[in-house]
């Protein structure tokens, strides 16, 4: 038996085991999360239209040591990226001689809660912008600087820093602005569309099999409230669009480009699915 076949076989056994018996192992934990005294909402009533009663943070699906690392903002290596982001915030770049702070001053005040409400409709661009795209637009339009390339370490750091200013704030995006609703519709369609040689939709794992095991991974609802997230796997920050692309790759499908219309629509829809969960950036995952 080759390695792949063997893996498929073990995965099947695992899934069968998780379905037939040990339901206890598959449940999200009954635990609560505080970070530096801030209460983090890890369970919230599901927005109308979802087949869940509650939306659940991925934190509840992780093992004790992973949860503990996120709960301690000092032990959380994602905070290295946040601190790097603070440096970038105050660094002058571009032809106009400005830093983020030149216009936005103290991020602790001006960016407080901002990240919890992205993606946001941008009339000038005629599409929703996430934090990464908003930063790039600011760099080009207001700083005369080059936009960051996807997953530039500075993009990850600055995005993490800005989102971290919303730590604890419930996620909530405004679908009434511009054409947000139609982007949400498109994102929903993508979420339920099976794709790739393995014929999997997002929903196959994160709605239909939440709480079950895929090989040794405990499947969460696939919530995005903690991105960018620090992963033990890569010992670095992982952006949401990197994670989207990774999931899609695992279905053996063609990967849409980061920040493409498809993935932006998916971000709008999946962010809505986590309405009411606190921003956890930088969350810690396996």
């Amino acid at each position, binding site marked *: 038996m080759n390695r792949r076949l063997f893996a498929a076989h073990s995965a099947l056994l695992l899934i069968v085991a998780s379905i037939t018996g040990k339901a206890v192992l598959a449940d999200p934990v009954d635990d609560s999360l505080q970070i530096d005294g801030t209460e983090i909402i890890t369970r919230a009533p599901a927005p109308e239209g979802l087949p869940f009663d509650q939306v659940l943070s991925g934190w509840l699906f992780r093992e004790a040591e992973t949860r503990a690392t996120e709960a301690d903002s*000092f032990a959380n290596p994602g905070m*290295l990226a946040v601190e*790097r982001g603070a440096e970038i915030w105050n660094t002058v770049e571009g032809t106009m001689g400005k830093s983020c702070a030149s216009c936005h001053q103290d991020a602790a005040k001006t960016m407080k809660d901002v990240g919890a409400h992205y993606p946001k409709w941008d009339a000038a661009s005629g599409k929703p912008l996430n934090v990464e795209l908003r930063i790039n637009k600011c760099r080009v339009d207001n700083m005369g600087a080059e936009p960051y390339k996807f997953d530039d370490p500075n993009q990850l750091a600055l995005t993490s820093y800005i989102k971290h200013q919303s730590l604890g704030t419930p996620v909530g995006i405004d679908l009434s602005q511009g054409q947000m609703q139609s982007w949400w519709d498109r994102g929903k369609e993508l979420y339920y569309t099976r794709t790739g040689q393995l014929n999997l939709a997002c929903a196959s794992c994160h709605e239909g099999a939440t709480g079950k095991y895929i090989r040794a991974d405990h499947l969460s609802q696939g919530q995005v409230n903690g991105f960018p997230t620090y992963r033990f796997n890569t*010992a670095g920050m992982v952006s949401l669009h990197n994670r989207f692309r990774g999931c899609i790759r695992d279905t053996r499908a063609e990967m849409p480009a980061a920040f493409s219309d498809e993935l932006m629509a998916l971000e709008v829809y999946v962010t809505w699915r986590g309405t009411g969960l606190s921003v956890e950036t930088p969350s810690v995952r396996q």
Partner: protein
Amino acid sequence: MATTPKPRVRVPKSAAAGEVIVLKTLISHEMESGQRKDKDGKTIPRKIINKFTCEFNGQPVFSCDLDPAISANPYFEFSAKVTESGTFKLTWVDDDGSVYTDEQKIEVA
């Protein structure tokens, strides 16, 4: 992160004389193990932090020799018994000879 390794250190600002306090340290570093290969099949050379030391007022408190099996962004938690006010000096030594340091003061009453 490819930027210069930057230490983070957490030490209490004050303590009672004779108290045992907990120190936490974290430093950004990829801890390249020397076991990995790049896309062309060539071994990526080892580059790790191989030594960490903590001194208080010039006296050794705790140290660690690190091997490549220590995770990226090395994290240490350890203790110190403080009997007087003073300064902790923390030092990380890189394979390439670079030395990263941090100092933290503590008031002991």
